[in-house]
């Protein structure tokens, strides 16, 4: 590999921001997933959009792949290069260009994280909707462009159409603004247009169609009153059924469910790791430090006291008559509980402070990182299911686990109703110690087989990371064919993150 490429890159981003140091390359060659380790050839950290444009143009000239990277926190190999190339770390593109308090918008660059943004928003009484599963170090923009479901997903508006416009750096180096054309006054209207809903085409694309450099995201207000209610359930089907009934009444803002594993992991104490948890660096590119024996015992003890599933509903009031709203919603929720034969609780498992933990988590998540420490790495099956099918899919996953002698009690479970529970976003996790080759191999095989079973029984991996790409695209008729044709048109040199999805 010629040094002149490094020189050219350094000329664009500055010497300190371009590297071919093996230690640096190693850092980006893997994450905690089973995706094969592959080094990029270069790592660059541009500071402006213009620099990114030049890098992309250069890559086209050199026919070198470009791998966009922001926080690397998808934990599923999305940011790991497939065949090398220039890894473009966007963390320096971290400007919060403006916060529009009146119209609940912020214009942010790709490197802006939740940890950076949320404290700024709080000055205006606002919040950003975040996925519970994302650490504070995650890029907001990337989560949104990759359709990582946010904790407010039960709400049709506040949980699903999360941004207004974004700038897409195309493989040719051109910038293309997606959405209603911006005006002098605002670039924050709606994501539609120009002509088509381009915005959907580039979502979930893992950087294969270009690089999103900035985005006008939609915000919502911080709660002025909030009550967290816990509802125990014996089975995932019962939990789903209750969730559906709550959501059909459009009660609460956030609503989700954990099985006993995930809820226990959420609250277990991991002293000494608080700083990492807060910064979002608890899970490194080789996973997390495994818990100590003491932590495991504490975890088991907590888990033993928890119901199999716990539904968590956050009743939320904003500026107007917040307490009145909570009061009527709680009464309505009680009616639902009576109809469904379940109970409303202020906590579960006698955990003190659980309500406050949830209140913190829904605003700035971070505690779901802890589950990675159970064995060091966590491999989640993340799929969408119709509500009726969730129980069947869980059973099928458990069957596959048993086949691999994987204890079902060690499978994490998280349910998130989307759009008033028209679908349920599910995450079922397997855990393993990556340093244990036999265990890793087994879990890897289990993970793949369980993924196939899920799809064949009606679960939908809408973000085809890792092994899901082949599983999904081999079953999706002409979809992959037309994706490839589109890719071929806009990226004829196939420089944008090749090897991902079906490319």
């Amino acid at each position: 590999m010629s040094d002149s490429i490094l020189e050219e890159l350094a000329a664009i981003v500055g010497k300190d921001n371009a590297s071919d140091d093996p230690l640096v390359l190693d850092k980006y060659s893997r994450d905690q997933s089973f995706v094969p380790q592959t080094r990029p050839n270069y790592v660059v950290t541009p500071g402006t959009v213009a620099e990114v444009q030049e890098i992309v143009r250069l890559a086209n000239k050199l026919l070198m792949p470009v791998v966009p990277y922001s926080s690397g926190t998808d934990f599923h190999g999305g940011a790991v290069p497939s065949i090398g190339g220039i890894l473009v770390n966007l963390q320096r593109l971290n400007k919060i260009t403006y916060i529009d308090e009146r119209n609940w918008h912020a214009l942010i660059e790709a490197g802006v994280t939740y940890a950076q943004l949320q404290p700024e928003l709080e000055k205006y009484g606002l919040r950003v909707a975040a996925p519970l599963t994302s650490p504070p170090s995650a890029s907001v923009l990337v989560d949104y462009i990759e359709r990582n479901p946010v904790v407010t997903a039960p709400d049709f508006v506040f949980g699903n159409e999360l941004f207004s416009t974004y700038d897409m750096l195309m493989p040719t180096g051109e910038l293309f603004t997606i959405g209603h054309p911006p005006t002098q006054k605002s670039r924050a209207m709606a994501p539609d247009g120009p002509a088509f809903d381009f915005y959907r085409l580039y979502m979930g694309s893992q950087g294969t169609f270009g690089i999103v450099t900035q985005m006008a995201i939609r915000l919502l207000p911080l709660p002025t009153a909030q009550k967290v209610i816990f509802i125990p359930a014996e089975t995932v089907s019962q939990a789903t059924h209750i969730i559906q009934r709550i959501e059909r009444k459009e009660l609460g803002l956030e609503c989700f469910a954990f099985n006993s594993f995930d809820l226990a992991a959420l609250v277990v104490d991991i002293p000494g790791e608080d700083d990492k948890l807060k910064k979002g660096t608890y899970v490194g590119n080789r996973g997390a430090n495994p818990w100590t024996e003491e932590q495991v015992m504490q975890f088991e003890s907590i888990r033993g006291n928890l119901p199999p599933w716990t539904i968590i509903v956050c009743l939320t009031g904003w500026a107007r008559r917040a307490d009145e709203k909570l009061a009527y919603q709680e009464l309505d929720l009680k009616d639902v509980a009576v109809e469904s034969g379940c109970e409303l609780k202020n906590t579960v498992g006698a955990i003190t402070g659980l309500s406050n933990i949830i209140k913190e988590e829904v605003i700035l998540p971070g505690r779901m990182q802890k589950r990675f420490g159970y064995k060091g790495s966590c491999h989640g099956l993340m799929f969408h299911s119709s509500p009726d099918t969730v129980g069947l899919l869980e059973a099928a996953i458990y069957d596959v686990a048993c086949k691999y002698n994987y204890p079902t009690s060690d499978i994490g479970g998280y349910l998130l109703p989307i759009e008033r529970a028209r679908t349920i976003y599910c995450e079922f996790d397997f855990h393993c110690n990556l340093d244990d080759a036999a265990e890793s191999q087994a879990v890897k095989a289990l993970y793949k087989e369980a993924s196939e079973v899920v799809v064949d029984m009606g679960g939908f991996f809408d973000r085809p990371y890792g092994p899901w790409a082949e599983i999904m695209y081999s079953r999706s008729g002409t979809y992959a064919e037309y994706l490839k044709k589109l890719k071929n048109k806009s990226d004829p040199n196939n420089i944008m993150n090749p090897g991902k999805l079906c490319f």
Partner: protein
Amino acid sequence: MIEPHVYQAIAAVVGPDFISDDPMVRQTYSKDGAFPGIMKRYKQDPSAIPDLVVLPASTEEVQGVVRIANRYGLKVIPISTGANMVSLCIPSEPGTISLDLKRMDKILEINEDTMTATIQPYVSFARIQAETMKRGLWNGGTPLAPGSCGLLSNIINSGTWQSSLAYGVGLRSIANLTLVLPNGDILKTGSATIPACGNFWCQGPGPDLKGIFEFCNHGGMAVIVEATMKLHPWAGGEWPQETVYNRPPLPANHRIYYVEYPDIEPMNEAMYEIAHSGIGTHLNGASNGWVTGMTQQTEELAEKRWHEGFFPRHMIYVINAGISSTRQLDHEENVLRDIVKETGGKFRDDLNEEMATWHGDAFRDGCGSRFQRRGSFSSIKLGCGHIDNHREFYERSQDIVMRHSHYMFDEETPWVYIFERGYYALFEDDTVFDQSDYEEASSARDMNIDGFVRTPKQDLLDLGYYYMEPVLTIYSPRVGPNAKHWVTQIKNVFDPNDTMNPGKLVRLEQ
């Protein structure tokens, strides 16, 4: 003219009863209520009359027809009810087939578990509402187009309605699509791509191709043969029947309010506060002109009341729904009353009787397009922005009024929507005109071109909502550098022979 062997090939696909090249039949697909169609008929333009009308009954028949068309260089325009404001379904060149989808009118499934309905393209708003409401669900409203209009074609072109406050514009309601491409390939989107998964999830896998066929695609790349639409909880119970003429009852568990304001700014503030408070399912800013045109029982009464300013010049209407309980209705009413008091509004309960048609039209539009008693209707300006941009939009629209001899129907104030809990607003100024009066129609058309084509060159908050040429070219520099280039690229992938509705969006060089 269609060659006999091509005619026979298509007849073999759909059957001899469902194909016609008779001039009388073809004539009835050559006009709608929009300017391009109207003006072409004044010119008696033969290229706006299709050469063939074909009615397929199934996906397979659609495939058969488009393959033949593609092969022989014919053009295809899919049409359901064909009512739109820019003559999207009127041919623009000879050798066009009007693909009338009327026979594909089935509601294939209503899934109460996933709150979705899977439909064929000719299913109307009215039919889906009739079937879903009885199951405690609904599609979220009707875009003030008659309920007989096609749901899918409206939504896919971003139909909007007052309940876009809560449920977003029509585009947000699409889950999956099944499309027939001009080469006959079937393309599905979302979870429909995988047969085992069914139609419940709306995105992916990975990049979501559905976006290409949404918004202003204009049937320009494929024929949609099936769509899964999202539904929402319906609190209204059994749809109440109209027992007093023109006075439909309000559905159960809903309350409607009319509030008068002295001027634009306090009205905006109220709309802002209502939207941002999270209450309500419907919210609209309306004016005397619009209200008289839509709600009054006769044209005579509408004209009289319009000219005498019977209804408030600045008015909003709000509908709250008790989705969880009556307690919700009570709470939301309290919030509304607080806002109205703070913003200096005045409740006009006395107007409830006069505007009773809203009880029906807000949910299932029956009479809403009554303003067409005066003739046809066209937008002359559409703008997107924040509610605070209302005054600016109004003044720019007034500039257009001053430059033209024709009146603007809602000259007092635009029709104002506020979408998706207040994230943005849409302002709409329209005119109505007598299609039979060429001078009047031409003048109205000039206003339309002024509003949509000439003025967006300035950096305003205007919107080329239909994104047709030349608007797409105008916007290209603004969205930089070349939106038209990307649109053309995509068209080249799906429809390289420019078979589907050519000339409406981009034209491919052949």
